């Protein structure tokens, strides 16, 4: 029994804490392009200092925050009505609707993003449709813009918004809405005063589940965003693979992690509080 409990901890130590320690050690070292791996271990904060002195990193960080935040908001605005509709659907239809939400997971994430490239590219399906229908004469390519990045993030992470929202909305006691109506609340007022506040735990969970991975997202801005989009995940990739500056890339990774701890801690606290309330 004791070993069974130790196992997940062992897993975390081997596959999370140890690599993290390695990354931290590299970040404190200096770049040594002539040796392999290109790191000279040491104890210097100059990589971190560089991050704060060069505007590129701050700009990439702020741009990531902005893109993640707007994508999260769009996902919330799309996901809430979806989750609400599923929760209000006839019980025997809900499993099917939920399966449709998670159905995209059956195909590889990478392949789905490649598919979007085909849809969004110049002379891609969307472009052709716009031309054919006469909605736009020369729409140009959406691919390579921030629009495409938003689209990709919302598309990829929407299920993470819908599922926690569904879980809270499905538990909502419908007699509470009847009570609100009985006491004189119009449907919209009942929604704003009862449904919305009671689904707040689901809103927070869904938003964090979309927001946190979106900030560090690399594949979507790289494939759909092109060169114009600045995101911290892409900067990290460039530092590591293009510039082969392992210590600086590691410092970026550490900063990203530390800055993500804040929303994760918020999420944890909120979960704990909602657990407390239930008991």
């Amino acid at each position, binding site marked *: 029994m004791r070993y069974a409990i130790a196992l997940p901890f062992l897993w975390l130590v081997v596959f999370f804490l140890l690599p993290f320690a390695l990354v931290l050690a590299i970040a404190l070292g200096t770049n040594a392009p002539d040796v392999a791996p290109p790191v000279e271990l040491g104890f210097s904060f100059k990589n971190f200092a560089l991050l704060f002195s060069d505007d590129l990193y701050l700009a990439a960080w702020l741009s990531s925050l902005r893109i993640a935040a707007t994508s999260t908001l769009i996902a919330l605005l799309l996901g809430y009505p979806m989750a609400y509709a599923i929760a209000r659907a006839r019980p025997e239809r809900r499993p099917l609707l939920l399966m449709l939400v998670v159905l995209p997971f059956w195909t590889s994430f990478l392949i789905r993003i490649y598919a979007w490239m085909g849809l969004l590219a110049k002379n891609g399906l969307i472009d052709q449709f716009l031309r054919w229908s006469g909605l736009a004469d020369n729409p140009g390519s959406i691919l390579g813009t921030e629009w495409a990045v938003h689209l990709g993030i919302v598309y990829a992470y929407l299920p993470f918004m819908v599922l926690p929202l569904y879980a809270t909305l499905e538990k909502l006691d419908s*007699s*509470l809405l*009847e009570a*609100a*109506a*009985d*006491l004189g609340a119009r449907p919209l007022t009942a929604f704003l*005063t*009862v449904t919305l506040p*009671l689904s707040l735990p689901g809103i927070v969970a869904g938003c964090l589940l979309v927001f946190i991975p979106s900030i560090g997202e690399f594949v979507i801005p790289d494939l759909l965003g092109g060169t114009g989009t600045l995101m911290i995940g892409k900067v990290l990739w460039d530092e590591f693979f293009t510039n082969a500056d392992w210590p600086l890339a590691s410092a970026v990774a550490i900063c990203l992690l530390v800055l993500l701890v804040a929303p994760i801690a918020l999420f944890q606290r909120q979960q704990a509080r909602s657990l407390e309330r239930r008991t």
Partner: protein
Amino acid sequence: MHAGPIVDSIVRIEGLTKRFGAITAVDGVDLEIRRGELFALLGGSGCGKTTLLRMLAGFEVPDGGRIVIDGQDMTGVPPHLRPVNMMFQSYALFPHMDVAANVGYGLRREGVRAPEIAARVAEALEQVKLADHAARRPAQLSGGQRQRVALARALVKRPKLLLLDEPLAALDRKLREGTRFELVRLQEQLGLTFVMVTHDQQESMSMATRLAVMNTGRVVQVGTPHEIYERPASRFVADFIGIANILEADGGWLALRPERITLAAGRPDTANTVAGKILDIAYEGDRSLYRIVTEGKGTMVVSTANVDRMQPASFARDQDVWLGWSADAGHRLSE
């Protein structure tokens, strides 16, 4: 039609029907509820009483017929515009609001000003004796306290009609007894009209001024508790309310209450007598119930009041006894 005082009715229900798929939950109900009375809808589960109540509140849309509340036809009127309030069986308190916010919810929807809301909430909480619990969350209250918050929340809007869906069902037995009197006291004090749904015949008998007994979507009898107990209209009502011996008499049926029958060792001097043997005895403290196999009238139930504390049951199992009842003890059933 009999000439009497003009009845001031607050609710008129005409030919009300509600179907769920193939099931007719409420089947052409006509009913008149008077202003200021505590009216009970009584019946077993699935008899349509809750559906009827939910149609009064506006949560269910009738398939036929109509409801008129205080002269206003309720057809097409949504719940939030009806002059009624409901106390839910589950209480349906808002878990994210404290007691005061729960009670004040309906007043805020009316646009009542904050100072008046505070005053009326305080008054309502005073009425249900929860004045010092205003800042608690529903989760921090006992079942009885929650019930009283639900009551205060529904009362504070001074509705023309207060609907109560099994108001005592979620309480334990001891609390139920006290709350019964408390509800009647509040109803009389405030002069409101209460419509209560219950499956508990004792509850409806002791609380209601009048009640409607329902079965399979229809109202089978309406009357005061006394009328319904003493003059049940049908075998169903006689059987459902209290205990009744249903006897065949002159080609019809007679309902005979257990306490109207005299139990004696020798043949009693009454208009009707029958001999029998005691099958079993149920001692209930204040009374004892005897099941007796009679000669020719099947198994009958007789009750005796246990007036003398020291006197043990005067009859024993398997004892041969006589049952007797006067000519007017029973009530002839019309069906």
